[in-house]
């Protein structure tokens, strides 16, 4: 349904909503600001103060007034003047009928009411030159406009800025001109079409000569139409420059010579071969607007193989700049201005400096077009038009973060892209909108550029870059892609977020020991300030353990305390199992663990045999199909062969089917119905299912609702309060009875297949059933059935009614009806509209029920197993952890200290196929050679150095270094809550005491991750892994190095 909005606030079109309502001063901050004029770059943080759309101050340390609103783009952002496109499509239209028409104004082609051209504004273009056409000798008057602003007053920078024309081949295809004489007479006739100049380059120069003569006040031959004179003279008097396009060298030469001769203020456009005349151009002081011949947004162009074919050349600008020609660079006129930075970079081949290239898209065009007093550079008093980038301006990998026009931020990549994404999701439909709302607002892409990139697995890239997006690492390599609007951050070094392999962070002081089934993910909360401080110290992932251990073990969870979204915070739960080997009573040490291991082995065996059996088991063909076929077969058999009763299995199956299908309600009911206000019948499809009283289902009927209506209601079976005569009737007439209660009939039939062929009108059903009994071989069931049948036979028929309601798109739908004679008689109400219906059951199968079965993964145990399928053992939460550890899916941490215990413990686990991670393990160093290859790793108690009191200083050992040297994986643990923040210091200290920094780094990142088997999520800087990154100001694990910035799941922790 559409709502009509009355546009009352007419003075504020849509654009205004994006604008800043504030009139006060705004301060823009960024890492560096390119003033362009004089090539000045303010580095290391600078500010621009703007007021009323103009620059009030710019500098590194400027005093900001009290009312200022500060917009800080961060220390890595770069602000350059708004880019000026010296060629643009905005004013282009059909040319005049005349070959030269000074009066056609590009401004007239500019639609001031059109929406802002965001595709160009989003690329940092703030102003553009507009030409009325590009296919006439003199097309008309060009102008310089801004890309956003209200009304002509705000948009217009200069108009007319130039007389726009061309002597290229396009312009030499002049239209014939016909002016009808009115009234046409026999003498005068209708007149003839007049040819116009020029057809050739020399013709063009001749025509230009004539036009300049007219403009200078010479005699008008009338050849160029009656109305050019006044305008041409006025423009000449104002010394408006003539911007004429010429491409090949001979055209340019002729044009430059002509301009010199008549003292024409010439701007050379196009200028494909201008380099061949660079000296002449510099001498004549003719500025050049160079159009870069590129079509990067399409495939290759085949221009031909001849010698005369001009290949695109990109070094023209460098040659022109060398000679001191004032230069502007634009993309070719058939490309959008948004490609201007790319064009400038491309035209830099041959040695044009980046500064010169930037000038050629900012101050260069501003000077050439005569608007440099207002735009083109960042200087006090000029318009506040800026392009905010995330890197150096002439660099393919930089992109635009924001665009300011006349003091307003017209485009902000992060903000506007988010709005668009949301809007697109909404447009995708109601479900899309819900999904968009429930999803966390992801930060935009982030690129981190560093001199040293520590990938975490020992590799160091120098320099290195990482691209984070959607919470993950998209790329980590020497140079990564820089998506548009990416926030680029620079620093010295970056490394993966560190892992605390054993921490209490998140317990908040709790001393309780949970039971074996407890999962920590149930108590996780998003990061608080403590969590964030730990993260800022570099610890992004911790293995959370309870303080105590119960004998059967506890589950530990790996998570990211500083995360802000539960879905991405939890790395794995359970990630590891912790057990206690050592006991105060040393006789008891390891007893419980050994028992558990023994039990776990048994338990595992059960599973193994199940899985083995399952692997061997060949499932029967899909059940539903079989069922239908069998049923049909059975029906056929019934009809054709009455003697075929022998196969009990078959019969039994049949019985079961009948029972199911005999249900009077379940299934699909369909009919064609006319639902007002529609006169055409439409499909009415009802799916019903009941469990005795409760009824669920769904209804599809387009006139009632455009979507499926979910129904819920009640199903009632009440005894029919009918006259006795009627009540008896069904008992006598088997057929009718069957019709009224399908169930009865089918059941009977199921037992006696021969019955169908018997005369229909005979004894009551009850007797029928009795007669059949002896034939059955299973007395128990038969008895039951007999009783059942008896009961049913005696029973009067039931009134089977249902009522259900559901919500459709047009409102609440109410259904009621009665099941009669295998048909469903009832009515449906939508508001006041009631339609009665009689539905036929088209299927008794409820197809939905089969669907989940088909989709179920193969290894998951089925609830209803197919016959012969191996039965799934039950899951024992106490032993499951051990089983997973045996399978190598989960880490197992065991507390054990003394050397003899360690050996026993490792042996016990080895027997079970587990390589445990030794926790504490004070004596592990002594046993290093014996443990190698047999343990998952060692989590040493915090002390780095150990000294044998008897031996003195000489025995000083770095236990981490010793273990690492023996090839035993190590990791660091804090065994603390917020104390986890000091873990990097521990590692750093270990390094200072002789541990290899590389090993230490790995022990904090990829080593810990693989030890804990969470290396599919964290521990390295690699594509697809979580976006946990630390930005450092020095090499990692140097005490002097601090962590500058931290990202967890792609989002910066602040």
């Amino acid at each position: 349904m559409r709502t009509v909005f009355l546009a009352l606030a007419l003075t504020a079109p849509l654009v205004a909503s994006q604008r800043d309502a504030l009139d006060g001063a705004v301060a823009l901050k960024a890492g560096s600001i390119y003033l362009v004029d004089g090539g000045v770059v303010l580095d290391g943080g600078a500010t621009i103060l703007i007021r009323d759309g103009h620059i009030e101050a710019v500098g590194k340390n400027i005093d900001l007034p009290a009312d200022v609103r500060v917009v800080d783009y961060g220390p890595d952002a770069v602000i350059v003047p708004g880019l000026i496109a010296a060629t643009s499509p905005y004013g282009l239209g059909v040319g005049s009928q005349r070959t030269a028409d000074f009066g056609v104004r590009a401004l007239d082609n500019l639609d001031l009411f059109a929406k802002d051209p965001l595709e160009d504004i989003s690329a940092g273009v703030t102003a553009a030159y507009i030409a009325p056409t590009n296919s006439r000798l003199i097309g008309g008057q060009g102008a310089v406009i801004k890309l956003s602003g209200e009304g002509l007053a705000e948009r217009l920078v200069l108009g007319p800025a130039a007389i726009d024309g061309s002597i290229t081949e396009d312009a030499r295809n002049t239209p014939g001109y016909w002016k009808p004489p009115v009234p046409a007479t026999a003498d005068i006739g209708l007149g003839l079409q007049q040819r116009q100049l020029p057809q050739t380059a020399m013709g063009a120069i001749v025509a230009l000569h004539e036009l300049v003569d007219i403009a200078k006040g010479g005699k008008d031959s009338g050849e160029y139409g009656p109305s050019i004179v006044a305008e041409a003279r006025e423009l000449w008097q104002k010394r408006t420059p003539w911007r004429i396009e010429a491409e090949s060298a001979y055209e340019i030469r002729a044009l430059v010579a002509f301009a010199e001769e008549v003292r024409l203020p010439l701007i050379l456009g196009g200028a494909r071969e201008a380099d061949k005349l660079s000296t002449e151009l510099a001498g004549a002081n003719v500025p050049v607007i160079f159009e870069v011949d590129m079509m990067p947004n399409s495939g290759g162009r085949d221009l031909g193989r001849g010698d005369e074919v001009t290949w695109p050349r990109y070094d023209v600008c460098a040659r022109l700049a060398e000679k001191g020609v004032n230069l502007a660079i634009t993309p070719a006129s058939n490309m959008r201005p948004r490609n201007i930075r790319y064009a400038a970079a491309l035209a830099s081949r041959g040695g044009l400096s980046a500064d010169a290239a930037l000038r050629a898209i900012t101050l260069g065009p501003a000077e050439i077009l005569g608007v440099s007093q207002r735009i083109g550079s960042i200087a006090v008093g000029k318009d506040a038009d800026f392009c905010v980038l995330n890197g150096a301006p002439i660099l393919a990998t930089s992109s635009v973060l924001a665009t300011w026009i006349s003091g307003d931020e017209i485009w902000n990549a992060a903000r506007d892209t988010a709005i668009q994404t949301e809007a697109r999701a909404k447009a995708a439909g109601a479900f899309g909108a819900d999904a968009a709302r429930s999803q966390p607002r992801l930060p935009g892409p982030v690129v981190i550029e560093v001199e040293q990139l520590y990938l975490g697995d020992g590799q160091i890239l120098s320099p290195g870059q990482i691209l984070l997006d959607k919470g993950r690492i998209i790329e980590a390599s020497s140079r990564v892609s820089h998506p548009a609007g990416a926030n680029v951050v620079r620093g010295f070094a970056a490394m993966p977020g560190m892992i605390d392999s054993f921490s209490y962070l998140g317990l908040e002081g709790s001393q309780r020991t949970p039971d074996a089934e407890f999962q920590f993910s149930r108590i996780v909360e998003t990061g608080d300030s403590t969590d964030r401080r730990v993260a800022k110290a570099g610890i992004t992932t911790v293995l959370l353990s309870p303080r105590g251990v119960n004998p059967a073990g506890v589950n530990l969870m790996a998570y990211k305390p500083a995360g802000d979204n539960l879905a991405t915070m939890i790395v794995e739960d359970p990630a590891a199992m912790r057990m206690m080997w050592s006991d105060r009573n040393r006789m008891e040490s390891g007893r419980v663990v050994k028992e558990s291991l023994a039990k776990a082995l048994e338990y595992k065996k059960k599973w193994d045999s199940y899985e083995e059996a399952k692997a061997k088991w060949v499932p029967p063909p899909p059940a539903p199909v079989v069922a239908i076929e069998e049923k049909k077969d059975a029906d056929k058999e019934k009809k054709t062969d009455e003697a075929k009763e022998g196969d009990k299995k078959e019969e039994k199956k049949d019985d079961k089917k009948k029972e199911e299908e005999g249900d009077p309600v379940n299934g699909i009911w369909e009919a064609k119905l006319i639902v007002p206000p529609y006169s055409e019948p439409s499909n009415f499809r009802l799916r019903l299912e009941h469990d005795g009283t409760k009824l669920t289902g769904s209804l599809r009927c387009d006139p009632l609702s455009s979507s499926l209506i979910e129904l819920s209601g009640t199903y009632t079976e009440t005894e029919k309060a009918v006259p006795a005569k009627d009540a008896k009737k069904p008992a006598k007439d088997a057929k009718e009875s069957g019709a009224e209660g399908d169930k009865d009939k089918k059941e009977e039939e199921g037992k006696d297949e021969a019955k169908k062929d018997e005369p229909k009108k005979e004894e009551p059903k009850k007797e029928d059933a009795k007669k059949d009994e002896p034939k059955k071989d299973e007395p128990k069931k038969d008895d039951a059935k007999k009783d059942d049948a008896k009961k049913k036979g005696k029973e009067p028929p039931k009134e089977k009614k249902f009522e259900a309601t559901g919500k459709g798109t047009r409102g609440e739908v109410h259904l009621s009806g009665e099941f009669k004679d295998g048909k469903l008689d009832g009515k449906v109400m939508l508001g006041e509209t009631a339609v009665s219906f009689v539905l036929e059951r088209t299927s008794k199968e409820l197809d939905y029920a089969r669907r989940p079965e088909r989709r179920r993964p193969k290894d998951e145990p089925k609830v209803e197993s197919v016959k012969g399928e191996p039965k799934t053992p039950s899951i024992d939460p106490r032993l499951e952890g051990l089983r997973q550890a045996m399978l190598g899916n989960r880490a197992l941490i065991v507390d054990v200290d003394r050397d003899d215990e360690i050996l026993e413990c490792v042996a016990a686990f080895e027997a079970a196929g587990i390589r445990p991670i030794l926790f504490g393990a004070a004596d592990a160093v002594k046993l290093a050679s014996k443990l190698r290859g047999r343990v998952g790793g060692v989590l040493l108690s915090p002390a780095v150095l150990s000294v044998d009191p008897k031996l003195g200083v000489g025995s000083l050992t770095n236990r981490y270094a010793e273990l690492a040297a023996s090839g035993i994986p190590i990791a660091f643990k804090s065994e603390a809550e917020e104390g986890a923040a000091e873990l990097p210091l521990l590692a750093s200290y270990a390094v200072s005491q002789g541990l290899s920094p590389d090993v230490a780094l790995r022990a904090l990142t990829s080593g810990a991750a693989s030890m804990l088997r969470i290396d599919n999520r964290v521990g390295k800087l690699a594509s697809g892994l979580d976006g946990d990154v630390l930005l450092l100001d020095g090499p990692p694990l140097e005490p002097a190095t601090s962590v500058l910035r931290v990202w967890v799941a792609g989002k910066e922790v602040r």
Partner: protein
Amino acid sequence: MQFRPSLSGPTRTMSLLSPRAVLLASAVLVLPLAAPALADGKLAIKVGRIITLSGPDITNGAILIENGRITAIGADLKLPWDAIVIDQPKMVAFPGMVEAHSARGMDRPNENIDVAPFLSVRDSIDPVGFYFEDSLRWGITTINVQQGPNCVIGAQGMVVKPVGITIEDMLIKPDGGLKLSAAPKQGYSPATQQQALRSAFSDLRAYLEETVRDKQQGGDRSKREALFQGRDLEGEKSKGKAMGGNAWKVEGLEAIPRGEIDEKQEPLLALVEGKLAAFFYCARPMDVQRALEIARANGFLARTTLVCNTACWKAIDAIADAGVPVVLEGPLVNLERDPITGKEMETFVPKVFADKKVRFALSSSNTTTESLWFQAATSVGLGLPRDTALKAITIVPAEILGLQKRVGSLEVGKDGNVLLFSGDPLSVTSFVEHVIVEGAHVYDRSKDIRVKALLEGKMPPGTSAAAEPGAKVEPSAAKPHDDTGTVPLDEPAPKKKD
């Protein structure tokens, strides 16, 4: 809904009719509706309610029309004994509706030449066109026929009534105003369109300056050209002097007799002098500013009416500043989409104009209907005040045409153009039952053949399927109507069906 049964049946059946029969058929159709029998006598209309639009409604009143003009109106009128009385106590009388701008009713609406102010729609209007017949059905009694928008400066329009079979019968006002278009003509861009508009006036100026110069130098070029063009220099039309406009002046122009001004230029000069009205077509809001620029620069803003398409509402500020009236064409509701959010915004255009106090007339040139009355009703439904909506189809367009003293409301002294509705004019169940134009009863719905054909399934006599309502015309059933009695040879013999 549109009452527009096709005049021509399937071509195959039409081929069976002789040209004479077709001619006869169309004559039969048109005559009952459009025969101009303007009454010289007295007509009294007694109705349950009179919506005068010039004052309060009158309950159970009467309107007396003498010699085509309203002579009395009120609740307790003494009706002259010799007046013919239409007594319809259940009906509602309403002034005949006024269409301020319509590019229909002509054989073709557009001329090929860019600047052609010397043309007149008089030569193009088709009096028996279906459009005029339909106008009566919808209660439109005054129409300004203007050339179509595919022009730079187009022909001169003409105000007519949809009654009569010659242009003279229909004529109300011969100078309906000049059509200009700010929207680019086919093959033009806005800039070249604008340049063509500017050139037209600068060419006029150049021509006038040249003429004056020639005259001052003792030449007689303008006179010779006038004689060459075959103009009557002595006639009534040629009297007076060329004066020039207010926006710019050509010195010495008053020395030129009017009759010597070039035919091609004369209407533009009249426009600049303020003697002609201008209807300036704008398709997009950007056209509005350019139209106003031209009108201002050449001094005819005061006599300009903008003919605006729906999207032009965005230029409302410029329109309000200029103080020009507007004819609203196109859909009443404007749709547009925000490029960032993708949100669709709807604007009900007449309300925008009403709120800015811009005088506007509704137009029947609309995508959904051809009825002014439906436009007004829809507008009220969308939130326009009833009074504003009713005036936008009566007195406002009458003012735009300078005919506010003749049409647009029911007042003593105005033309006897009265519609009798079966109920309130803005009710869906109401229809125009009778139309009285200048005192003549020209339309009666109960006798409307086409309405009958549509509602009762009876095709008008003479049309192809006249025999049976909805019957399929079999070749064999349709006997040749012409005298020769020949059957076309290419007609296959009807096959027998089992």
